[in-house]
């Protein structure tokens, strides 16, 4: 069981929260103008990062509010939580792209 620091309520057990998937995915403003690929990317493509992952949580059995978190998916350690609309306090580590030409 994880302890999660809700930015509004403080530390609470994981059972009070619902995971909301990858954070900072903006819904395209004009879906009708998207290509099929752009819409599929919005719906389905996820970074699935092995490392520091920016993700949404909702304090369902508490204040009910959504917030964002940075969590290391190799250890499940939370590095930070922050309110919706705020920038991540430290840059989320991007998965290194190792393709070589």
């Amino acid at each position, binding site marked *: *069981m*994880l302890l999660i620091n809700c930015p509004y309520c403080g530390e609470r057990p*994981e*059972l009070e929260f*619902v*995971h909301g*998937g990858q954070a900072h995915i903006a819904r395209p403003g004009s879906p009708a103008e998207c290509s*099929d*690929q752009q819409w*599929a*990317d919005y*719906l*389905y*493509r*996820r*970074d*699935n990062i*092995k490392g520091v*992952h920016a*993700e949404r949580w909702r304090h369902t059995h508490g204040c009910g509010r959504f917030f964002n978190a940075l*969590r290391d*998916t*190799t*250890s*499940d350690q939370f590095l930070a939580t922050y309110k919706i609309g705020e920038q991540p306090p430290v840059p989320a580590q991007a*998965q290194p*792209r*190792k*393709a*070589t*030409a």
Partner: protein
Amino acid sequence: MQRFSGLSLIRRGLNGQRGWQPQWRRAEPKPDYDAIIVGGGGHGLGAAFYLAKEHGITRVAVLEKGWIGGGNTGRNTTIIRSNYLFDESAALYDHSVQLWESLSQVLNYNVMFSQRGVMMLAHTVHDVQVSQRHVHANRANGVDNEWLTSEEARAHCPLLKVDDIRYPVLGAAFQRRGGTARHDAVAWAFARAADALGVDIIENCEVLGIRRDAGGAVSGVDTTRGTIRAPRIGVSAAGHSSVIMRMAGVDLPIESYPLQALVSEPVKPIFPCVVMSNTIHAYISQSDKGEMVIGAGTDAYTSYTQRGGLHISRHALEAICELFPMFRRLRMLRSWGGIVDVTPDRSPIIAKTPVPGLYVNCGWGTGGFKATPGAAHLLAWTIAHDAPHPINAPFTIERFRDGNLIDEAAAAAVAH
């Protein structure tokens, strides 16, 4: 390859078990191969075996970052079934069950495939309707499945408590051709058979990058044991599929979650089949060693920790104790987690990718073990022909763009 037989067992037994040879070579990586398989689980080893056996491609390396069968192949609950709703899925999973039925003979290795039957319980009116729809759809597709009343279910599995529980058992779908197999033996059997055909199985060899030539096609991989060249690369990396495929610039519609399982102390044979419950979410069978093998659900958040939360496994145990009250006194021996690669429609991807020479077998989510020989066979076919077999043709990456989902998530006969 030293062939196994009853006679060889007796002879070695009388001879103090001397003279057995290692079942596969400890291969060193060569500079180049005709094909590389990334991932030394059952799926990857099987793909190498079928490439060599059915397509004559024997200059193949299987690269495994740990030890073979140490990932999800050794972490699942060994359940095999093919009672999926949609036509595409039924064809795919039953292809695998058909290969399971002769696998021990084909590989000359006892994978302990046991068609003891898979019973999927229905606890609500909705469950009954969905289960019966599955039974009919399966039978229309030539996949065996039958409906049992709650009395028939209890007659078959006497330990099952069907009433006086929070969610009474109203009936069950029962696939008699389903069952279990010894998961480690599957990895070892494919490794031994592939090795005998010339495949190099290279352990402790983690892929760090995928090389591509000027035209964009794959040309090899960088690994912890040096660069290895090959014009064709098949990726069968389960929970790490996103990580590997991103090395070639391919993004997947996949998220990785921990999935937990537990085994009890061994007890005498008491359990005749596999029992699964979608609604209260647990599944259980007995291994031939006597342990009760129990599967839990996935954790709620993505992770690569191979651990999972205690409350998730506790939830599964509560469901098991409700259905089988006598198991309250069982002690659990071990619990563990594996990382499963989950697609939005809960159907796998076995396909060519936008990168020439790169093929992928992934997205099996919580149910990849049952598909081991089938997925391996189809990945090998896809690599050898540079085109999908008719069975895996619908299981592309592009189906998410084109709206051709095979939505076993919505149809699920099992919780995810």
